[in-house]
Structure formats: C-alpha cells, structure tokens
C-alpha cells in the first residue's frame, strides 16, 4: 500500500514539475487569443489556430496512461486460458476492448500534437495470442522514466497472477484490477491538481470518462469479490 502511495506522490511531483515547464509553451494561452483586427476569435477560429492549450502534464498523463492501460490488456488477455469464471470473463472481455480503444484514443491525441507516442502493444502479432505472452513482456517500458504508474502491478504480482488458475485466478484478477483501476483514479486526481491541465475538451472528457468508468468498474469488482467472500448462509436473492 505504502508503495503505491509513494508512486502516486512521485507521479504528482512529476506532473507538477512538468506543468512548471509549460510556461514557455506558446500554446498555453492564459488569455483569449486576439487576431490582428482585434475582434475576439470565434471558437472555430480558435480551433483552426490550434490555440487550445495543453500542458506537459497532459502529455505525461497520456503517455503514462498508455502503459497503465497496456498492463490491463495483458491481464485481461490471460482470462480465457486461466480458468476464469463466466462473470470474470465478461468483465475482462469488456476491459480488454475498452482499454485497447482508450490506448488508441490517447495515441491519436499525442500524434495529432506531434508528441512522443508510446505503443506498448505493438509487439502483439495478431492480437489474439495474449495468453502466450510472458507476464513480463507487457511490463517493458513503463514510461515516465520506467517508473510504475500508480496502481500498476509489480513484476512479482504479474507473475503471481499468471501462475494462478480457476477461483484463485478470479480472486487475484479482481483484487489486482481494483488496485490497477484505483491507480488510474489517482492519476486523474493528480492531473486535475496541475494548473492548466485538462483544459483541452478532449482531455477533460477523457479523464472524466476514466474517472466514472473505472469508479463504476471498481464498484462492480468489489461486489464480485464480496459475493465470492460472502458465506452461503447469508443467502442470495433468487
């Protein structure tokens, strides 16, 4: 636990530091850009002038979150071959699709701004052989100086999950994915604490979606874990 908190603090420091370096960016406009005739720009003119500001913190968030999401894809990729139950299969199926799509979104956002764009899933041959991957292959290049993003599983935790089967896999998968998602919420929290971050409408929407979707999924996973935990005499509704 303390490890994750430390990582979070480190990330926070990183994002703050990144934000401080944005002062020189011409795109970080603090006041409305004014075209030569001194009439205020329309929103369309502002978009065409690419005047919507973003900060180094936004960029670092996207880069870091790509690696964060890639680990969830790796974890979800083990579900079909590790004896997971049907509810976990359903959940993981959705996580797999969702996190891949979000990686694609973050890559589009970075590429459109000519920022370095990580592609941790590029090594996938067909996208269908995740289970054959070693636990470590998804762990290469953590981004942000190879520091684990908040909530990411350590190599030991990945090994532990990959070695588990059946109900033990279910329990570990849920436990670790809650840890993983909780880290994503921390990343959003830290980003929003950076002055000028998430001003871009697409970034704000994305982090809001990460916040609500993963909060919702954490709740779902906690209930699934609780159901596994509940003793049978407490009963289940028909």
């Amino acid at each position: 636990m303390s490890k994750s908190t430390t990582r979070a603090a480190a990330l926070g420091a990183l994002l703050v530091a990144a934000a401080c370096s944005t002062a020189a960016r011409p795109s970080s406009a603090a006041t409305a850009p004014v075209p030569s005739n001194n009439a205020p720009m329309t929103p369309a003119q502002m978009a065409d002038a690419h005047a919507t500001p973003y900060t180094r913190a936004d960029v670092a968030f996207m880069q870091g979150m790509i690696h964060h999401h890639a680990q969830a894809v790796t974890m979800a990729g083990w579900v079909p071959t590790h004896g997971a139950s049907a509810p976990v299969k359903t959940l993981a199926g959705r996580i797999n699709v969702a996190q891949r799509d979000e990686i694609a979104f973050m890559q589009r956002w970075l590429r459109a701004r000519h920022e370095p764009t990580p592609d941790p899933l590029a090594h996938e041959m067909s996208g269908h052989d995740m289970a054959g991957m070693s636990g470590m292959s998804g762990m290469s290049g953590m981004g942000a100086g190879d520091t684990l993003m908040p909530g990411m599983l350590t190599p030991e935790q990945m090994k532990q999950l990959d070695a588990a089967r059946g109900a033990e896999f279910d329990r570990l998968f849920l436990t670790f994915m809650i840890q993983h998602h909780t880290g994503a919420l921390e990343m959003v929290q830290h980003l929003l604490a950076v002055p000028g971050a998430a001003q871009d409408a697409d970034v704000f929407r994305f982090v809001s979606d990460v916040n609500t979707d993963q909060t919702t999924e954490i709740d779902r996973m906690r209930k699934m874990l609780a159901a596994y935990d509940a003793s049978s005499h407490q009963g289940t509704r028909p």
Partner: protein
Amino acid sequence: MRLGYSSVAIAMGVLSAAGCASSHAAATPSPSPTVTQSSSTDARVGLSAGWFNAGEAIWNLKKVSENKPAPAFLPKSPAGLSLANSDLTFTGNYAIQGNFSGFTVWDISNPAHATVADAYVCRGSQSDVSVYKNLLFVSGEELGGRLDCGIQGDTATVSPERLRGIRIFDISDIRHPKYIANVQTCRGSHTHTVVTDPNDPNNIYIYVSGSAPVRPAAELAGCSGATPQQDPNSELFRIEVIQVPLANPAKAHVISKPDILAHLGAVEHHGETPADSIAAAKLRAEREAAAARAGRTMPQRRPAGPPTGPVQCHDITVYPAIGLAGGACAGYGVLLDIRDPAHPRRLFAASDTNFSFWHSATFSNDGHKVLFSDEWGGGTQPRCRATDDPHWGADAIFTIDHDSLDFDGYYKLPAPQTQTENCVAHNGSLIPVPGRDIMAQAWYQGGISVFDWTDPAHPKEIAYFDRGPMNKDTLYLAGYWSAYWYNGHIYGSEIARGFDVFDLAPSANLTQNEIDAAKLVHFDQLNVQDQPKLVWPTAFVVARAYVDQLTRDNGLSSARLSAVSDALNRAEKASGADRTSTLAQLATQLDNDAQSSSDSRRVKLLAGEVRALAAK
C-alpha cells in the same frame, strides 16, 4: 480531495480479503437475450468516408434537410470535442442545439431549410440544453468554463471566474438570448433535467447530473468529495436539485441534495447479482467443502469497506405524469419516486452484467416499461464493430412491475460500423404512434435507428439513416448525439456535421395512417428528458392506425378489417346522427371482436377511439 473515493481505503479493504484455493466453479450462463443480428447485406456496411460528402444509407426515412454548423462553430478541419454539437431542446418553431463552445438557435419554421437564428458563444461543455417558457438552461462542466462565457479557458486550479453548473438565459427574444443567472454546483453539470411539478405552478426544478470530479471547497464552499463516512455532507451518492422560482429565476438555487444512491448494497435485480451470486454461492460451497475435507474452517467475512455503489447519475428522465423517474446512474438503473420533486426517493435499482455505464432512460408512454441505454466507452469509442458483443453498449428494456424492474430484452444497432466510427447507444425519444412503442435513437456515427419495442423482448428496427465515417483511417469524433421527434419530424444533432431533419416514410413497418396519427401530437416546447405524456386528439386517422396495426399482426380477420375500414369511411363521409349511429354500432361490434382477437388490447383501443369519435 477532488475524487470521490479514498483510494487507500478501497485498496486496503480489498487487500485484506482473505483468499483460499479452491477449484474453479463454472457460472450458470444467463439466458440468451434477443438481439437483432447484423446482416452482411445491410446497406450501412461499406459506406464511403467524408466530412460533408460521406456515403449515406437510408431506409424508411426521408432526409428533409442537412444544415452545416453556424460559422462560429465550424472549423476548417474537424476539431474534436471543443466544437462538438450536443443535445437538443425545442420551443415553438425553434430548436436549440448545445455546442461545447455555446449553443445554436435553429429556426425550423421550414424544416427543409433550417436557418441559424443565433449562434451564442459560451464555452462550458457539454452545454446540455432545456427550456421552460422563456427560460433556457445550459449545462457547464469543464474546467475551462467561465462566468463571462469567454472561450480562453481558466487555468487556475481554484478560480472565482469558473462556471461549473447551470447557466440560465432569458429567451423571450430568442434571437438575442440574455444571460441572466447561473447556479454553481459541486461537480458541474454534465447533463440536467427540468422537472415540472403538477402541484406547484410557481417553481420548476432541475436535477443536475455531474459526472466529473468534485471541485475543491476552496472554489465552491461546501463541496466535498470525501466518502460519506468521512464527511456526512459528501457530494457523492447524491444528485443536486435546483429550485427555479418562476417569478424571479435569477434566485434559482440548490434546494436539496437527495442521497438517492446511498446504501445501495446488493443489487436488487437482474444480471450481475443473480448470475454472479449463483456462481459465488457455488464457489463458496465448494470452498467450504474443500476446507472441511482439509480440516480447516473458513475465514471470517471481511469487514465492510467504504460505501460502494454509483456515486453519481448520468441522465435522469422524469415522467411527472406518472410520478416516476428513470435514473441512469453509472453501474445501476434506478427507479425514482418524484411525486415530491425536490425530494426524489429511490424505489428500485437494477444492474446488468452486460451494462458498463447506465446512461439514459426512456419510458413507454403507458409507463409500464422503461428502456435504459448503456453508453459503453462514453460515446467517443467505436463500440459497434462486428467484433463487439451485441449485448454491450446496447439498450436494455425492463417492465415496471410494482416499483421493480423486470428485464425483457436488449436492442443494439443491427449494422456493424467501422473502427473509425464512434458508436454506442445514445439519446432518443418516442415517436407518438398510437398503440406502439416506437423510438428514434442516435448512435453517434452509427447513425439514427428507429425501432419498435412494443414487445419488450423482441425489439425490431423499422427505419434508419447512416453516414460513412468521417475518415476511413482515423477516428474523428462525429455522429448523432441525439435524434428526437418533435411535431412531425425527426431532428438529429450531428456532433461535427450540424443539424439534420428527417421525415418518416411509409413502409410495411409503419403506414401513412400511423405516421399521420403521430403528427397529430403537438408540443409547444419539448425537453425529451422531461418526458411528456402523449395524448392523441380524437381522429379517424388514429382509428385507421389501429386498423393498420391489426392488419399487420393479424389481430382480426381480413374480412372483419375490411368491414371496419368501410364503416370508418362511411362514418367519416356522413354527419350528424348517421355518423354517430354508424360509429356506435361499429364500437359495439369491436367490443365483441376483442373477445376473440389474438390482439384484444388493440381491438379495445380501436373500439375506444371509435366510441370517442361517436361522441365527438
């Protein structure tokens, strides 16, 4: 803390869970629901890409006009969400369309040529819009929204100039809206719902749904994102209710924050809990048996962690005529009692293994059913690909049974879309065809789908419109945010392409009589999430719509239907006592027909309409 959960507390609760090895328990698969399967011959497959020149497929609809965004909101190249068109509201001959940078007032006096009456610049996102008489309400959520409507943003983490909440405009002169007030809220307003109280003519209410993180108390006093255990005044598990005094709308303020999502423990019905609980009970039994064999005892149940459940709602659709609301609240669909609008009360909550994010709700006109939508991926992701599970990102239809929700079936756009088209279930509204539950629904770049959900277990598409992607190689955000029926036409708000108008075209699925009957329903104003009761004026065409429906479903013999049509024609041509007696006689015959019909409900509807015509 800006975010709701104490993540440390969550993780500790989880990590303290005791585990023990056991064999894998297979879950009972849930019954296979009905989903309209895609067809490889669907005309929507393979449409060419383009912004304003994409390929189009249309079926049982007629495109009346397409109208590009106002210049202020039309960039030279697609600009993503900052210029996205959002939801629609209607007043008289005007449609008001939200935009993440303001709103557009469309003059729709001539639907074949909608014109921009005003393009009001006011950044804020999502600019969800509603009207009540001369008032316009606009949602503001993002960090860059400003009190002065400036578009430059606001980069301070705590700012006195930031607006997150509801802006109020006076639209007495709709071509020149006047910004008269605003109400700041703790999470801003992602969407909102105007709630009218049949017993309170002096006030209206606004339910505010915020899905963004809670703002700091330093920016807005009293805002707390702590858990309710840490802070009883936590913003979480609540909605905000604004009261707007109509005599002085500038005095609008938050009147209550009902905790409609509190104490939502075990899921009360459908999907997740039944399926998961069966699997869990089985697993538990196996684990206990294994433990007993090994001479061990099972670990104690771990102590409860922080409260779980949805911390906020997305859309809430109110149906004041029946005193109910459907709240689409993150992982749950909730049914609310809103007879006291300032203090809504939760009646029931449903969950669903296949639902990712409960987004919106639509009631059937009789209030016996409710359709919830799952906005899996938030609307920005391509979730209608051939590889996407047809139960994910779909609609789920429930029967309302004594304040509980019984699941009936799913509906998902039946045509696969490409991976460069953002697509998932989104906003729609009922089309007032008497005797049937028909709605138009927006599916982003999946287009508009019109479908019949009269039989909740077997929803069926009856019309559609679709364009190809913005670009064949890259996903550019676009597509229909909402598709709503208003006074005879379907209006579509297209995120990147503007504002489109459609008519229904008659087909085997929907006759001209049914369309003409739908056109009889008139609203002075329409906020779709403040669902109005549809009431049809007494008319021959309404009776003929029922006759057409009985013909379609063989509810009466063709000989009987032909005789009924003849009688209606004779009565319409006649007048006075002749008409009355013809109709009265027909109504009596139909009462008898109803007893032997396979669709007696509809024959009774027809008999009632004929009786009303006789009394007219």
